[in-house]
């Protein structure tokens, strides 16, 4: 098997991973960054057929100049924390990567909640539609509804307007009063207030609904209309697409597989220098709790500096990172999901899209784990990435852990992986 060795291995080339890679490479470390996307930037700085956003340019330039090596299209499938080894898959097959330290900057994924019709083509994630549009998915001239929750909705809606889409509405589930109090708390953060004002200006003329969520998506082979409930009142809209996401979930599967402990909120637990409880494994950005891009950059620099042994630099970043983390927690409270969303799925609504498990089969079962054992919920190719956080919200209890490999592999690849693990164990025990 191909083997790549380095001082620091960074998983994920979004803001946190880029910052960590820069910080370590600039301190003389040999850095390798693995990312499953076609290019650097993660979701927020994704390029594709579009130029990356302006805020990304200095970071992408610094990254290119840092000497860190990026492997795009390369997805980690399994890890061995004791041997500081990760196995990954790219277009040519499996490879083994080894390092003295590892920074997990695996980002977040969107929270999708089931409601009638959500499996129709044309119902996409909010961040999902933006990611696709940045890689050429057609949005110009399309009538698009944006729904769900969180600051991402406004950002996505504004981006869609700028790119020629007709945004039919932005439906936020949180009540206006709660969000107004949150906005007022930004009074001492003029940059954040200015960002909010700019988004609202771009969205002038677009109906912005609060205490509003999708009740049903209609259409035969593709969505053609959506019904919302706004303050309990039904409202219908004709749409070409619905972009819907209910917030972000930290991507912790690799961290969990490596034995990293999670905190009470389900994020990777880290200390003031971004160390997890597993020796020489760090985590930065969204896996440690949803905090946004500034938080991710600070945590990334901190993790990179501390992995490179620069405790002084790490200390200066730590204070700013703590402030950014507080903002993340305030966001979370402002956009907390309301109870009524648990009533969205009806009996016939699919909760597991891979195995087509319907809500009537899953509703009465105790936990996400029990549901998986009884109904195959979460046993398809996505391995529960979509349904487990939804079940966690709908039923409570911990989401079931993903087991290795982290991606579907061929039997040949599984055999190759098992053989290489054995080889590595022999090599390291000698």
């Amino acid at each position, binding site marked *: 098997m191909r083997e790549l060795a380095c001082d620091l291995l960074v998983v994920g080339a979004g803001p946190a991973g880029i910052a960590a890679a820069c910080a370590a490479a600039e301190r003389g470390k040999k850095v390798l960054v693995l990312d499953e996307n076609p290019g650097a930037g993660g979701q927020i700085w994704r390029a594709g057929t579009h130029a990356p956003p302006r805020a990304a340019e200095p970071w992408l330039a610094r990254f290119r100049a840092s000497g860190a090596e990026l492997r795009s299209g390369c997805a980690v499938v399994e890890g061995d924390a004791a041997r500081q080894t990760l196995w990954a898959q790219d277009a040519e097959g499996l490879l083994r990567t080894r390092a003295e330290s590892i920074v997990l900057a695996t980002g977040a*994924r969107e929270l999708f909640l089931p409601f009638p019709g959500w*499996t129709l083509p044309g119902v996409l994630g909010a961040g999902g*539609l933006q990611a696709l549009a940045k*890689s050429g998915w*057609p949005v110009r001239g399309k009538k698009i509804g944006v729904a769900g929750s969180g600051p991402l909705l406004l950002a996505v809606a504004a981006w869609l307007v700028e790119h020629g889409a007709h945004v039919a509405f932005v439906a936020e589930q949180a009540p206006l009063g709660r969000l107004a109090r949150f906005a007022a708390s930004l009074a001492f953060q003029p940059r954040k207030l200015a960002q909010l004002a700019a988004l609202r200006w771009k969205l002038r003329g677009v109906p912005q609904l609060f205490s509003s969520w999708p009740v049903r998506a209609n259409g035969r082979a593709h969505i053609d209309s959506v019904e919302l409930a706004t303050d309990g009142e039904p409202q219908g809209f004709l749409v070409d697409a619905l972009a819907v996401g209910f917030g972000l979930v930290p991507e912790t599967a690799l961290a969990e597989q490596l034995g990293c402990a999670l905190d009470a909120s389900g994020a990777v637990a880290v200390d003031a220098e971004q160390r997890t409880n597993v020796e020489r494994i760090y985590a930065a950005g969204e896996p440690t709790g949803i905090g946004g891009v500034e938080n991710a950059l600070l945590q990334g620099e901190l993790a990179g500096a501390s992995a490179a042994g620069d405790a002084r630099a790490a200390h200066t970043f730590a204070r700013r990172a703590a402030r950014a983390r507080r903002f993340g927690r305030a966001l979370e409270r402002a956009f907390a999901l309301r109870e009524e969303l648990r009533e969205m799925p009806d009996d016939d609504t699919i909760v597991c899209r891979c195995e087509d498990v319907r809500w009537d089969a899953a509703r009465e079962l105790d936990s996400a784990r029990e549901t998986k054992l009884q109904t195959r919920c979460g046993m398809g190719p*996505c391995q529960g*990435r979509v349904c487990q956080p939804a079940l966690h919200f709908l039923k409570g209890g911990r989401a079931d852990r993903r087991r290795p490999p982290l991606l579907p592999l061929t039997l040949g690849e599984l055999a190759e992986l098992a053989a290489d693990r054995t080889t590595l164990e022999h090599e390291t025990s000698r």
Partner: protein
Amino acid sequence: MGDAAHAHAHGEHDAGHCTIWLDGERRRAPIGASVAAALALHGWRGTRTSVSGEPRSALCGMGICFECRVAIDGVPLRRACLVTVREGMEVSTHHA
């Protein structure tokens, strides 16, 4: 389809596009586009049929949901949202 027609209007010599095969049909796609975007640009509304027979298409756009999985150059289970189009690429939505 407007964008696709626009791409065609640029003709065969447009350096900004490449030629790919979608379910055996020859199509042009913008350089840098994902396979998922190329399928949508050319009017493919679904990328797979679910186990109970429903049409499905991309949901997450970032490699999580596997709804956009297709066969690319004969390799099944490729996530169309994560793969960039390449000259001569063959995409099949029938064997995923």
